[in-house]
């Protein structure tokens, strides 16, 4: 078993970044095909493909599209390119290497859901992606793929890129909408869901970059062919971002259901010499951590990872070897969530602060034995009580780290230093 280059087929060839190269390799043929179809046919194909959102939540894409009301109101398609889940760098690659693949898939998707305006909301730091996308959109307008009466079909569509300004929370779809509306990127209470009331209170579909790009192979190869890859419940291929203590980090496109172990040891080249595997975060930093033992039986699909109490998330696999201190790793993550909490809901705003403070107190060698239970208690109180999932995302790593690597936390508290590194890893100067 190895990589399957469907979405990533353009990555190795620089000419695909531009319209001419993309077209020479079949680019925009699916748009031509789509414009001759009934929009509902496309939606039905996406539904039948079983495609699930690739940004992290894994919601069925076709079903999301199906929620749009049929009341004639203008609709928006928003591409979520606010890639910020620690460990994830697949969408950046997709935008930089194959911008036209995204543009084409967005025009097709817009046609399917009858939207005449779309935005690609890109995280602010991705200047390179933004400039490449702007160029691709300009080329697409010139070629008649965007604008009025696209390819003589009578379908009009405009596309624009919006540069975010640094906020993890804008990757949450309603946070993204708030940001695009020129506000703080604070998530909104659901219902109403964006499909009913989204951007400017109009029906809005928000899909991740990779999700949208997947529409092209579904259309080109057909539902049956698409479903050949992956499992019954997790069809298709997905990009996995491999990082951490592994020899060959990078983006790998795999059929869902691929063994996690094979990604790390076969494709990823394994762990650095003299080290062994300690833990893996399989789906971005919000996904509960797996022990080396659990990695043995984990497959990269929605059902296998949720069966192990974790999740596929964004497909970001962070490998942690035995030279790492788990208290240190957790403190790094609690700091992240504290920094990124939008401050709107009390359990999250206060809870992330406490998790950050307590883990750093332990890391400074000043922890108390009761701190370990306190972490669990605070995390438990943060789950399921807020407008969005950030609070849960902050709580889950804490619970999994403390449960699975409890001895490291106990040792650190008792001895006042790291079991692994043999010293105090934090000296009180908190970075912001």
């Amino acid at each position, binding site marked *: 078993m190895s990589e399957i280059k469907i979405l990533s087929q353009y990555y190795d060839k620089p000419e695909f970044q531009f319209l001419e190269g993309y077209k020479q390799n079949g680019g925009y043929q699916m748009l031509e095909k789509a414009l001759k179809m009934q929009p509902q046919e496309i939606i039905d194909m996406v539904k039948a493909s079983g495609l699930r959102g690739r940004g992290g939540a894994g919601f069925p894409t076709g079903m999301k599209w199906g929620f749009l009301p049929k009341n004639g109101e203008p609709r928006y398609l928003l591409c979520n390119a606010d890639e910020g889940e620690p460990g994830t*760098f697949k*969408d950046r690659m997709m935008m930089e290497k194959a911008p036209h693949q995204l543009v084409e898939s967005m025009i097709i998707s817009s046609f399917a859901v009858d939207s005449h305006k779309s935005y690609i909301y890109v995280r602010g730091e991705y200047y390179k992606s933004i400039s490449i996308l702007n160029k691709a959109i300009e080329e697409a307008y010139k070629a008649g793929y965007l604008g009025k009466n696209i390819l003589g079909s009578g379908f009009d569509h405009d596309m624009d890129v919006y540069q975010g300004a640094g906020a993890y929370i804008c990757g949450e779809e309603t946070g993204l909408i708030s940001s695009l509306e020129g506000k703080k990127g604070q998530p909104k209470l659901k219902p109403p869901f964006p499909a009913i009331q989204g951007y400017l209170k109009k029906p809005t579909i928000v899909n991740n970059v990779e999700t949208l790009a997947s529409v092209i192979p579904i259309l080109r190869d057909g539902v049956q062919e698409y479903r050949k890859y992956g499992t019954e419940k997790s069809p298709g291929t997905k990009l996995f971002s491999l990082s951490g203590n592994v020899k060959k980090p990078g983006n790998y496109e795999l059929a869902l259901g691929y063994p996690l172990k094979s990604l790390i040891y076969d494709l990823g080249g394994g762990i650095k010499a003299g080290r062994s595997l300690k833990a893996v975060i399989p789906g971005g930093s919000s996904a509960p951590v797996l022990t080396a033992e659990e990695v043995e039986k984990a497959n990269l699909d929605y059902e296998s990872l949720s069966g192990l109490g974790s999740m596929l998330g964004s497909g970001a696999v962070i490998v942690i070897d035995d030279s790492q201190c788990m208290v240190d790793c957790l403190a790094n993550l609690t700091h992240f969530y504290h920094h990124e909490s939008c401050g709107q809901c009390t359990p999250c705003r206060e809870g992330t602060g406490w998790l950050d403070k307590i883990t750093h107190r332990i890391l400074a060698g000043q922890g108390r034995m009761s701190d370990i239970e306190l972490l669990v208690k605070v995390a438990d109180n943060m789950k399921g009580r807020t407008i969005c999932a950030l609070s849960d995302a902050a709580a889950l790593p804490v619970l999994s780290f403390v449960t699975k690597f409890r001895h490291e936390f106990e040792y650190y508290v008792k001895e006042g230093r790291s079991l692994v590194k043999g010293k105090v890893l934090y000296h009180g100067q908190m970075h912001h």
Partner: protein
Amino acid sequence: MFELSSESVEEVKKQMARFETIESAIIPSLYAVQKQNQGWINDEAIEALSKVMQIPSSRINEVFKFYTMFNQKKVGKYHVQLCGTLSCHINGAPDISDFLCQNLDIGLDEVTADGKFSISRVECLGSCGTGPMMQVNETYYESLTPELALSILKGLP
């Protein structure tokens, strides 16, 4: 007194015409103001923007202060943002941070005496497979060692 340059005013007006509502232009306009003001934004700049956009400064301020890419204090000509999140962290990001601060003789969030550099530790920049990494103004530098990071900075004009 801070005044928006004619270039910035033109950019802000362009952004105000670009979206369905003028509020969507706040973020792009803040970028324009920050660019004019050497990489950071102060109260006077917000006031000036408020006048051009005809949006209360309190409304602009809440956006300005929410997003990390808008700097609330002076930064260097080269603003170095070091990723400190997990994948970079376990591959040596703290060593780079210490090494750069020592060699440039500044702490985090400080500016060198000649105004050339400032360093911040930031959260995940989506470069986890090529960490540790830093963003200098708009450019990513990846797969860093402490020495490589310093030599990149020393090589900047």
